[in-house]
């Protein structure tokens, strides 16, 4: 099962490499990873998605928790949560394609953020599934380049991950 693990950790040199190293060292895979400082400059927030059965996820969270730099973590997929990923995608836009892509962007509530006579850059945000669907709709032949941020997530309601 796909899981989103959200980690609050010290914004310290080496912290990220310890997290990433843990995954390669113990043979866990990382599907996506994002990390950035938080409103508290001493902390960063790391979100990673991984795939594994309950036993594996339990081991992953236990080992992450053991890292001295990790302050707290939560498996967002255990409860209601919001997840978002941002994608920038460069597509061919010539002749008919220009209208077609535009329609597709509207349906997916994306934005065209850069235009040249032959190319659009489209920005789409949403769940990973939605981004996948957009990529499919536009069609492989039209795609020049895809850049995705990886998943960020937050628990719904009152629940917060903070100090």
């Amino acid at each position, binding site marked *: 099962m796909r899981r989103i693990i959200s980690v609050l*950790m010290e914004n310290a040199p080496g912290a990220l490499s310890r997290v990433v190293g843990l995954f390669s*060292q113990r043979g866990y895979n990382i599907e996506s990873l994002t990390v950035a400082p938080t409103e508290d400059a001493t902390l960063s927030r790391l979100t990673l998605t991984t795939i594994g059965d309950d036993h594996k996820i339990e081991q992953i969270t236990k080992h992450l928790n053991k890292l*001295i730099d990790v302050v707290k973590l939560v498996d967002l997929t255990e409860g209601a949560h919001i997840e978002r990923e941002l994608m920038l995608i460069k597509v061919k836009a010539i002749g008919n394609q220009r209208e077609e892509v535009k329609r597709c962007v509207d349906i997916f509530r994306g934005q065209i953020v850069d235009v040249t006579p032959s190319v659009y850059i489209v920005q789409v945000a949403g769940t990973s599934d939605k981004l996948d669907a957009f990529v499919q709709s536009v069609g492989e032949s039209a795609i020049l380049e895809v850049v995705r941020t990886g998943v960020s997530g937050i628990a719904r309601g009152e629940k917060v991950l903070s*100090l």
Partner: protein
Amino acid sequence: MELLSGGDMLIRALQDEGVDTIFGYPGGSALHIYDAIFRQKKVKHILVRHEQAATHAADGYARATGKVGTVLVTSGPGATNAITGIATAYMDSIPMVVISGQVPSDKIGEDAFQETDMVGVSRPIVKHSFLVKDPAEIPATIKKAYYIAATGRPGPVVVDLPKDVTNPYEKFEYSYPKKIKLRSYTPIEKGHSGQIRKAVQLLMGARRPVIYAGGGVVQGNASELVTQFARTLNFPVTTTLMGLGGFPASDSRWLGMLGMHGTYEANTAMHHADVILAVGARFDDRVTNTPNKFCPQAKIIHIDIDPASISKTVSADIPIVGSVGSVMKDMLGLLNEISERPDAKMLGDWWQQIEDWRARHGILIEPRYDISSELIKPQDVIKTLHKVTGGDAYITSDVGQHQMFAAQYYGFDLPRRWINSGGLGTMGFGLPSAMGVQMAHRDATVACVTGEGSIQMCIQELSACTQYHLPIKIICLNNQALGMVKQWQDMQYSSRYSESLYEDSLPDFVKLAEAYGHVGIRVERKDELQAKMEECFAMKDRLVFMDIQVDPAEHVYPMQIAPGTMRDMWLSKTERT
């Protein structure tokens, strides 16, 4: 407040931390630190002959005392030479702080002379690491390093110090923090009371219980509690390789070691148990044989300080996270509150069954090897060692058959007396770790049980032993081969001895010992073994190297058959369960 340079701050911080001994080796990036060592008297530095030995010595010191071992090395090759010893300590959860010099901050990343990314290289084998960028951070960093190394599940911590950070000409205000709190690190001490209650309930209903005690019992100073618990309930106890001494071997409730080379009665009792109380043990693959065939009828209570050790390979029915000491104390408390006890008749039957197993194949009640042989049997060497030392020595060991014979036959009654590399299985560990033990206990009898293969991996330390007058007794079970490798080749490769023999290239160990200023004794005949060993141990203030020619064909038994259950074992070359 006092003004000190980074180098002086480091040494002062070590003093304030209570460090009395450092094992190390100097080099360019560490020279400011070495000068600071020269200008003080409180911390004694032991100059090893190879940085690997510094880490093993600090490790032996830590295992024998329970205190944190301290290592100091230079950057680059000094740091990388320390890696094997750090990994050894990591696998066995040994508290250790390794201070490494580093090239100056402004040269980091430029492939400077003797530059190695020590924090990066050591990352998978440390509990934590620090790269100190500002001298003012030294005192707090040292405090954190020792705190992290010693608490929770202990482990090695690396502190990497760029040379400019220890510059003698820049001075800073020094004060050593009394306490340190890390918001991201709060080791759990107490076990969950509900879980503890459930565990005691399960144990009271047990018909075929076994206590399976691991290295955590020794490391967590909980052997007295575990012993009391087992005696109160009259439960059988088996200990892991790391747990030897955690329960007295002379107590009849001890079934011996379990696992790959465990006793028949311990492995068989585990297999048939209905409740297993695992204390500070981690269900290592050298214990469980095939995990999904492990103890099919048993409900498992698992006490461990490290949540990640619980249900890692074998899932626990009642997990209890906490220090074994604290949890065992609570369990004993609960025992005293309740009147309920396990069914005496059932327990009696269980003991009867175990005694039958013990009588049938137990290696500790009578020899299961050929005692009529002319050759010296390695098992007899260990038994003689026990006799001559009164069972009261610190025994360090290397890795191989000799290690297993020592583990099987010495019979440890006290914790911290058996010092070996269990998790990593590091050949070369024995002699340097004995140095650490002897430094910690100057008057104690310290023996290193080794093989002619392993001893050559850190033999250079015979020189350090001369310098510091360390009267270690080296008991070399010389079987003219990488015996454990050869045993596997006998058993699995039709005796094709690929690269496990030396073709008459072994040194004369007696002369070698003498060349370093020590005493060498060769033993070739069975009838001279005990007298010569007595002679050896009578030389209280000398290092003695006993080169004992043992039967090269001997194998270690029992040996579990993989893949299989706990009770599937070879009992001799020809007999299996």
